[in-house]
């Protein structure tokens, strides 16, 4: 089914944050640190404050009690012996700045132009401090300190184990040990962030429009911090131009803008610009792994040991989600009898790290898949064979990995059937005949190679979501849920879930998401959970409404409920479709102006329901690609790309495929084009779309997809999440394919650092020519 939200988007009428502007709105520009680590020596705002058209200039001092560290949004799971040192940012920096882009001053003016004029008049004198730029040295005893009071840069230390790795290693025929690095990129949603607040002092009500993936937690936090009842704060997430993770935070701007509106009695608006987005919006990646894989002579996994460092940037407001995802996702679809995993999280003077599409899962997949590749090479196995020998079988579910996942629940896979995915991907990419294809290309002087890798994705975690379904007297069906939506097609998918239960065309169902005045229970859109968790809540609410419809229709038409069918917005008698009544009419009857509502029933055709899974579902898939590497320049072209994935029951195949396509493109960017390049002082030098290379239509190939459906037993729809899947395994597949393409021309080449780039690949192959990065 095609999307119901498209018409508004295609005609430019869908309201995005910057399209909203209440009358009398004032505009904000921030003055931010241009240094990664510095002491604020002095700050003079007087010239800015005197500038014509400026309403207010605000520093940390002006915030009073509000100038305290922000919340830790996700508590770390209760892992024995885990250390977690929480350090979060002040809304505006005081005394010291710890990363580029940290806000120091907010300027409110009649227009953004004037606010930026005034920003240039602020005299901010920063004294540079030694910065932590290199993750690998962040925990050295002589490293500069990001947070002086902590005494070291250790943000966290977590160890999780399963079985006895030392014993497994002792029995191994082959042990593969490598160091892997996976560096930083940005989410680069094409729409930057924005916040608009409108305080109505007469009613004591605050309305906030916000590019957030999680409007309800933002409302709750704002109410608590500003001393308002939750019921007097309305947070609306309008149409959002891409989320990808960073829009789920609670940022300083989300507090400062509402506070300014309350203080000034005017609507106040801030829209992030692209340069700010490179520093003030959270970003991801940055890990170094020391990893070991123990195999028997047949290539069976005996155990894995992985010790890694994770860069959290200057603060750690999102707890341990990203490194725990890396730790857990490393295990993949494989039988791993022994696992020893330990990570340390380090503070650095770089922008804050929180989940970006994939959220640490890619690092784990990269490590495991690369280790398997090197193991296969050692044992003379092909990449498909070594993987096939280690896949969990369909009879091994639920499979308990004996460690804890990011949602604090045990890492237990609910269901899966992995081998068919691998075989289907191998078939579609042409694995069986590829030796011949590679040789034929080589005969023409072309280097082509194939990569094929597995991944799993823990999705659809709790705690819960809710939804309400209402049939209105006019016949309109209204569906509301608390999650925000950023282009995933929720308006369509959610309408399909409800329409299927009450016999209404999804195109005629009005779906509202992300407005706390319409629904205020829930958490948000993250961890590939919208369709699973909110979808299941909608399903439950729709079933309740269906029950009410059948009861009222049975009375109205004087037949048993079992004899009724719901279709085309009507209740009809089975076999006598002319005996019928519209849902709108039933809704009117269910809400009588006179007489009585039946004892024990509620008025109207409406129900709310909630769904809270005990733990997440596990989706899986296989990516396979063929690349051509230019032997001279090391440029890489992707010739074909296949994704076979299994996200349980598919509600809307078109939307699921779209999610996969977008994920793959982001993964290609991460693998080969995108890297935020920091100098030795932790300053980023390529913070613009001119220099930070996002993949374009000529870099991303056509993508062939196939669905397998192994339903999840953990929710009534049988669905698993898919939002992040496409992005997770790309780098691993890419690295394997490039090595395969260069097996003759650069034998023994090993790609262990991501992002790769034409420049880096060239340098890897030609170390004598110097390692000039592209």
């Amino acid at each position, binding site marked *: 089914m095609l999307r119901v939200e*498209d*018409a508004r988007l295609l*005609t*430019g009428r869908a309201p995005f944050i910057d399209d909203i502007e209440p009358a009398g709105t004032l505009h904000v520009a921030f003055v931010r640190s241009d240094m990664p680590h510095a002491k604020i020596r002095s700050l003079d705002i007087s010239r800015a404050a005197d500038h014509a058209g400026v309403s207010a200039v605000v520093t940390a001092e002006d915030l009073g009690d509000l100038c305290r560290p922000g919340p830790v949004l996700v508590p770390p799971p209760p892992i024995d012996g885990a250390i977690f040192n929480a350090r979060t940012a002040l809304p505006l920096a005081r005394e010291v700045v710890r990363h580029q882009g940290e806000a120091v001053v907010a300027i409110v003016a009649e227009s953004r132009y004037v606010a930026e004029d005034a920003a240039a008049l602020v005299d901010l004198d920063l004294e540079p401090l030694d910065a932590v730029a290199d993750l690998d040295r962040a925990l050295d005893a002589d490293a500069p300190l990001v947070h002086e009071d902590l005494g070291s840069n250790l943000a966290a230390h977590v160890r999780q184990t399963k079985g006895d790795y030392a014993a497994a290693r002792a029995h191994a025929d082959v042990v593969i040990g490598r160091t892997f690095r996976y560096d930083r990129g940005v989410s680069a949603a094409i*729409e930057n962030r924005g916040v608009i607040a409108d305080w109505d002092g007469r009613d004591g009500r605050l309305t906030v429009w916000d590019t957030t993936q999680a409007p309800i937690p933002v409302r709750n936090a704002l109410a608590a911090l500003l001393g308002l009842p939750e019921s007097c704060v309305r947070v609306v997430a309008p149409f959002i131009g*891409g989320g990808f993770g960073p829009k789920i935070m609670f940022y300083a701007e989300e507090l400062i803008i509402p506070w300014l509106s309350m203080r000034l009695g005017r609507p106040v608006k801030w829209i992030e610009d692209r340069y700010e987005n490179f520093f003030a919006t959270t970003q991801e990646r940055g890990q170094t792994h020391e990893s070991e894989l123990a195999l028997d002579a047949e290539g069976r996994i005996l155990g894995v040991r992985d010790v890694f460092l994770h860069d959290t940037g200057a603060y750690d407001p999102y707890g341990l989600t990203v490194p725990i995802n890396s730790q857990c996702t490393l295990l993949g679809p494989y039988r791993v009898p022994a696992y020893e995993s330990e990570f340390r999280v380090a503070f650095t003077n770089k922008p804050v790290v929180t989940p970006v599409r994939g959220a640490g899962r890619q690092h784990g997949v990269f490590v495991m898949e690369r280790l398997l590749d090197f193991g296969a090479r050692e044992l003379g196995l092909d990449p498909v064979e070594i993987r096939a020998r280690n896949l969990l079988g369909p009879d091994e579910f639920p499979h308990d990995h004996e460690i804890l996942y990011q949602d604090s629940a045990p890492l237990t896979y609910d269901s899966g059937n992995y081998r068919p995915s691998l075989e289907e991907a191998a078939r579609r990419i042409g694995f069986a005949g590829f030796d011949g294809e590679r040789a034929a290309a080589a005969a023409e002087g072309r280097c082509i190679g194939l990569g094929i890798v597995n991944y799993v994705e823990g999705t659809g975690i709790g705690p819960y979501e809710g939804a309400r379904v209402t049939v209105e007297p006019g016949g309109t069906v209204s569906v509301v849920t608390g999650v925000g939506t950023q282009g995933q097609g929720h308006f369509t998918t959610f309408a399909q879930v409800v329409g299927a239960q009450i016999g209404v065309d999804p195109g005629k169902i009005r779906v509202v998401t992300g407005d706390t005045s319409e629904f205020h229970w829930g958490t948000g859109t993250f961890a590939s959970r919208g369709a699973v968790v909110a979808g299941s809540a909608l399903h439950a609410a729709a079933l309740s409404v269906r029950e009410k419809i059948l009861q009222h229709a049975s009375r109205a038409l004087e037949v048993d409920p079992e004899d009724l069918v719901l279709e085309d917005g009507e209740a009809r008698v089975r076999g006598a479709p002319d005996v019928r009544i519209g849902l709108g009419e039933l809704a009117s009857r269910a809400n009588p102006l006179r007489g009585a509502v039946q004892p024990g029933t509620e008025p109207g055709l409406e129900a709310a329901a909630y769904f809270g899974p005990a733990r997440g579902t596990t989706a899986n898939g296989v990516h396979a690609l063929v690349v051509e590497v230019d032997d001279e320049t090391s440029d890489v072209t992707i010739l074909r790309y296949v994704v076979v994935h299994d996200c349980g029951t598919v509600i809307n195949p078109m939307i699921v495929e779209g999610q996969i396509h977008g994920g793959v493109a982001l993964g290609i960017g991460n693998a080969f084009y995108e890297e935020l390049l920091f100098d030795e002082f932790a300053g980023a030098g390529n913070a613009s*779309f001119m220099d930070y290379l996002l993949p374009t*239509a000529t870099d*991303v190939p056509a993508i062939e997809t196939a669905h397998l459906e192994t339903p999840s037993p953990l929710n009534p729809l049988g669905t698993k999440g898919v939002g992040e899947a496409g992005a997770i395994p790309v780098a691993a597949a890419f690295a394997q394919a490039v090595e395969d393409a260069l097996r003759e021309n650069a034998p023994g080449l090993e790609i262990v650092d991501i992002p790769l780039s034409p420049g880096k690949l060239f340098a890897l192959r030609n170390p004598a020519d110097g390692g000039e990065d592209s």
Partner: protein
Amino acid sequence: MNEIRVAARINGEDISRTVEPRMLLSDFLRGPAGLTGTHVGCEHGVCGACTVLLDGEPVRSCLMLAAQIDGCAVTTVEGLAGVAGEPDVGALHPIQRAFHETHALQCGFCTPGILLSVAAFLEETPRPTRDEVREAISGHLCRCTGYHNIVEGVVRAAELLAEGP
């Protein structure tokens, strides 16, 4: 600050506004002209979200000043189909319809700029190959779709346009 008058024909309608000389065209369209369908993604001319047609040619409205359109004709996404009021799939321009049919948009933020580039492209190249389409849209960044379905959308749009109204 001194102000200047800008008079232009935007989506077939003559409008005249007084603005600061430094005002960007993108800000002019979204502000004084009231056409918020033109989106701003990078303000340095790379992402392509703010693309509009100036006398039929695609331009990045974030790289132009409002003053530069004086006496010109501008088409924004709102003018593509010429539909007023609540949008209906049936009233869309063929390119918009093709994008709908092929799921060529997700969040929809970059879409208006792409639609206008494609409109100009298909005028010049009514039956493009997929490679030509990729080249034609390579000046636009999209983070949601992976471009796969945008390519399909443009190919489909060419078919719909060839079929005529």
